[in-house]
């Protein structure tokens, strides 16, 4: 058990170090000054209050997207549709944000709930298809991304109204913006969403480990047949897992719609938040604390990476580093799988104990 936990922490940390090392090699191979590059990266994350604020701002949607992927993963499902769920959540949040005149105490929660429900509805489609018709959720959820991308653009144009490629700004009563946080960080776009995101991580933990529902969801994730044999409805749990995952994803959209941008633009291509969520969940080992930390790391890399350009290093280098971190994490798990397979008897006992926890 101890070894298990040790691995769980060691592999991500080792992967980050190796990923950054590969990044350094790529920089040197490309003829850039790696030392200067990393200094800029560091400065771009921690150097100024502004960059700290922007890093935290970018963390909030990543936490939600990471939680969304991780939640489905706990039930053995791969939700690649987070990107699409983010878009519909974003749209509904903004729509509620601009169309109603309500006091903040009602308006803001309403916009957040709307975003969550929109994401849930969008995620329910691949969930139901999987549960009822056994259509593979990876295929359907990817395709739902494209439907979301073009449908949201069309709805924005047709019904919500677009001037200058974007909607109106959401009413102040639905906005997550915080003058205090913004001024504290020298006019960054940091907003209250970060608190909502951390709260969501706690809710994630509570649902999965403190409720019967969570117990069932995890049981289905461990072993579908055993769960069914034990009298749990696998179908119901698959749909539920997708729906809850979609709520997290929809809220990631609300972070952008009510926080970062306060509006929605016509999106020519995907925002990337949903796809980064997959990386966040993987690095965070589908654990709420892990997801929060991984989201912080990736947000920092993304924001800090912009600064690396000042010494001529292309920001794409960050994508290379992130990609390598993911490769190392994934291969780390593969190595663990091999180790597990060779340590037989003890391990069998451990797995069954794990499942019954």
């Amino acid at each position: 058990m101890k070894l298990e936990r040790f691995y769980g922490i060691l592999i991500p940390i080792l992967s980050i170090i190796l990923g950054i090392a590969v990044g350094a090699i790529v920089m040197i191979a490309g003829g850039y000054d790696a030392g200067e590059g990393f200094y800029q990266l560091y400065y771009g994350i921690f150097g100024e209050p502004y960059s700290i604020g922007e890093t935290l701002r970018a963390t909030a949607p990543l936490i939600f997207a990471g939680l969304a992927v991780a939640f489905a993963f706990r039930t053995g499902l791969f939700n690649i549709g987070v990107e699409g769920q983010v878009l519909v959540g974003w749209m509904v949040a903004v729509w509620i944000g601009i169309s109603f005149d309500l006091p903040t105490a009602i308006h803001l929660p309403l916009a957040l709930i709307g975003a969550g429900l929109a994401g849930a509805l969008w995620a329910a489609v691949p969930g139901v298809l999987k549960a009822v018709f056994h259509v593979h959720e990876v295929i359907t959820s990817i395709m739902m991304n494209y439907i979301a991308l073009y449908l949201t653009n069309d709805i924005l144009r047709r019904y919500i109204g677009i001037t200058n490629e974007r909607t109106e700004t959401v009413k102040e009563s639905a906005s997550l913006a915080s003058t205090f946080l913004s001024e504290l960080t020298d006019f960054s776009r940091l907003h209250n969403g970060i608190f909502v995101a951390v709260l969501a991580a706690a809710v994630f933990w509570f649902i999965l480990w403190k409720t019967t529902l969570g117990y069932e969801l995890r049981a289905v994730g461990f072993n579908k047949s055993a769960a069914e044999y034990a009298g749990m409805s696998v179908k119901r749990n698959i749909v539920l897992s997708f729906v809850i995952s979609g709520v997290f994803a929809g809220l990631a959209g609300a972070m952008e719609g009510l926080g970062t941008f306060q509006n929605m633009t016509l999106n020519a291509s995907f925002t990337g938040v949903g796809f980064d969520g997959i990386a966040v969940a993987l690095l965070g080992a589908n654990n709420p604390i892990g997801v929060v930390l991984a989201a912080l790391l990736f947000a920092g890399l993304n924001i800090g990476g912009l600064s690396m350009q000042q010494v001529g290093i292309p920001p794409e280098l960050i994508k290379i580093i992130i990609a390598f971190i993911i490769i190392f994490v994934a291969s780390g798990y593969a190595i663990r799988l091999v180790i597990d397979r060779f340590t037989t008897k003890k391990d069998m006992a451990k797995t069954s104990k794990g499942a019954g926890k």
Partner: protein
Amino acid sequence: MMKNKMVLFSALAVSTAGLAACGDGGEKKNEGFSVAMVADKGGIDDKSFNQSAWEGLKAYGEKEGVKEGEGYSYLQSKAQQDYQPNLSRLARGGADLVFGIGNTFNEDIKTVSSQFKDTQFAIVDNVVEGENVTSITFKENEGAYLAGIAAAMQTKSDHVGFIGGMQMDVIERFRAGFIAGAKSINPDIQVDVQFAEDFAAPEKGQAIAAGMYGKGADVIFHAAGGTGNGIFTEAKNRKKNGEDVYVIGVDRDQTEEGMPEGVTLTSVVKRVDRAVADVAGKAKAGELKGGETLRYGMKEDGVDVVSSDMLSDEIRNELKKAKEDVISGKISVPER
């Protein structure tokens, strides 16, 4: 590399200090004058808009004798979320004039320009209000009108196509001008119009172009940024198989993209480079007022078509005539 920079820096510092000692305050200020641009997701090698703007800054640098990294520089954006940190970073870093390349920068320029009152900002392709913001727009419809004429005269099937990046004002101007130009030659010409909903998806451009060429269009005009590169790919493949198809490029001279098969009939050039260099030069000379909208049309040399070797003399003459009429105001090209 680092050392060189340090030496240069100290040399610069000494010279400015020297100048300051001479009491030449005005000179001192412009010695360290720097302009910078933030590229959108396409990047400065998008063979289109951002590249044109960057070429403009380089031309400005050459003219003023300043070096990249000191007198002018750029920052790239991976996503729209990056626009504001990039703009802010440049303003914080002491840039005197910051360009946002592309209309999607409008909200971000508005926000950042209100936070950095001492910095001048400029936005290309959109209008943002603010006393320290200069808006640069073009009369794309005038250039596209000439493209429409060239397409209508070149086509053998009386069927041409238009592929736009997204449905928005700027692209609408391209579309409206192109159709007006084509109909001015042949009122019965068929013009297919399609939008890729993306400025950076060559694969989508290729798929749409394949559809249009397949249905019989033989000249396609694109206003789709990086997506357009796929249209060139499709046209070149068809040319290799013996089909007589053409592409009309956009923003800058795209002859190169059509090589070696030679599918680029001409290009509607939007002289983003000229406008950017013009505004940067004005700023350095202290003539930039801010709070203005500068509209670069055919008259201002802001839009034109490339007088390519692919065009017959007949077409070229027609274009010349039309250009004179547009400049004189005899022809007024619709914007929508």
